[in-house]
């Protein structure tokens, strides 16, 4: 049931013109449901790239990802769609994650429409989701600019939860937030994990955050991944 990465490598800019730049090489690790794996390292070392590869947003230059014991490259269309639904990604800046011209309700219900959820069911699930993330129903009528960063980050997580993910790649989920809001979001993430058994890959440059959230930690430095418990 795990999400496994085997010997992943990524090279940018390789083509006819030159050799390109190798970001990382031979990176292997495994994510378990209900557990958090932390990923640290200085900026520019490819943490986010690795996260995007795991979430299926980019393809690796070499290596494979196994989701539930079947490799991503050999997947059929329907299987791949399930993978994309079950593995989600949460980004650093929540203000960029919502369409500024649409009300929150629109951005949230877009996800459910995609899943062909009927109208009444949509309302019920949205209400349930708001309860989980601890926000009042009034926020649905607002525009992203009318909400704080913390509220938007909660909503970004809520929107992901509607898809019932098994794994979430958290790319610096709190680095755009204040310390007090950061603590709230981290506690919320822990609560959601305990309730729904989601596996996290937490990317952060803040060691304290990673230590607080995860048992397993990896350090990406000079293109290599060092894993320590």
């Amino acid at each position: 049931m795990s999400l496994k990465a085997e010997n992943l490598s990524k090279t940018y800019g390789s083509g006819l013109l030159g050799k390109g730049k190798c970001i990382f090489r031979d990176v292997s690790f495994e994510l378990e449901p209900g557990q958090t794996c932390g990923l640290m390292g200085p900026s520019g070392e490819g943490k986010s790239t690795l996260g995007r590869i795991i979430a299926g947003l980019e393809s690796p230059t070499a290596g494979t990802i196994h989701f539930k014991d079947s490799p991503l490259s050999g997947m059929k269309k329907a299987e791949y769609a399930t993978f994309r639904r079950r593995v989600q990604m949460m980004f650093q800046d929540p203000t960029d994650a919502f369409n500024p011209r649409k009300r929150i309700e629109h951005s949230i219900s877009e996800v459910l429409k995609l899943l062909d959820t009927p109208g009444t069911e949509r309302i019920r699930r949205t209400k349930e989701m708001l309860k989980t993330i601890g926000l009042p129903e009034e926020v649905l009528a607002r525009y992203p600019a009318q909400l704080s960063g913390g509220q938007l980050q909660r909503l970004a997580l809520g929107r992901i939860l509607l898809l019932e993910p098994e794994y979430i790649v958290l790319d610096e989920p709190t680095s755009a937030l204040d310390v007090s809001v950061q603590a709230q979001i981290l506690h919320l993430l822990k609560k959601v994990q305990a309730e729904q058994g989601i596996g996290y890959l937490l990317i952060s440059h803040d060691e304290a955050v990673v230590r607080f959230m995860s048992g397993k930690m990896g350090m990406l430095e000079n293109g290599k991944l060092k894993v320590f418990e």
Partner: protein
Amino acid sequence: MNTLLEVKDLNVSFQGNENENKTGNKSENKNETVTAVSCLSISIREKETLALVGETGCGKSVVAHAIMRLLPPESIVKGTIEFKGKNLLKLSEKEMAKLRGKEISIIFQNPSLALNPVYSIGHQLAEPLRIHTQKMRWKEKEGKKEKVKQKEKREKKKENSNLSKVSRALKRVGFSNPREYMGYYPSWCSGGMNQRFLIAASTMLDPVLLIADEPSKGLDRDRVSELENELKGLKEKSETSLLLISHDLGFVRRLADRVAVMYAGEIVEIADPSSLFESPLHPYTRGLLNSLPERGFVPIPGASPPLSNPPAGCRFHPRCPIKEKRCTQERPELKESNGRAVRCFLCP
């Protein structure tokens, strides 16, 4: 030490404009006034670093922009901002333009956005020099042909001296071959580099007061410690006072001489960093410190109130763990004792 800047009873409010009414929620936005800063009084002495900390949206940046007189025209600013005995709010735009960059300077948050993407770094760094030395050029009489040649020569000289000043400023912020970087464009450089360019630009004319608005935001740890050394060096080398606005508490602790904590547009506590971090008085300050990583990420329950409709009484009472009946009805004043000030009925 003399007081350099004294802000007294500053009130800044914004009126919800009509455009917003059309697109936004009509009933909510009608005549909605947002009071971003209310009754704020702070003072900065010469060579002192005062830090303003608080959550995003509590009005820290509005204070900085009010001091620089950079708020949009629809904002309503009341109170006094005295800088070297002059009330900045009463100055004309022309007089203010003379002060900006020369006497008071600001480092904006988000360095990549604060720099112009289409001009080179060297061009942008020389801008304060060009603007504040232009007056000399106006005074020169034009007309006589021999003088025109002399003038051209002088201008070339001035440009050269500008260039050397820019390269000296770049060297000061840690670029070993400044001539190369002067030809760079902001998009070629990382956030940390752009941040240092901005510091170089804003300290070019040795301002007496430097306002740093969230200088550490979006930088990773190595860059933050570099920036810290930068600002420390600046304080030691020149006699600049610093108004440091940040929500990074560790950064503030290492740099500030005094810390003012803001919550929902008000100052709730002022103290020196060691006593503030070791024995915070106001319940909000205590909550804020408890949410730090080293104290186990204990969050404050609830969220900060909307500034358009702050709660009656103490603004922190809906989230306060020790509130009494009085807190929900009366508004506490900022009480001063032993060099500390706190806005709470229940604090000694």
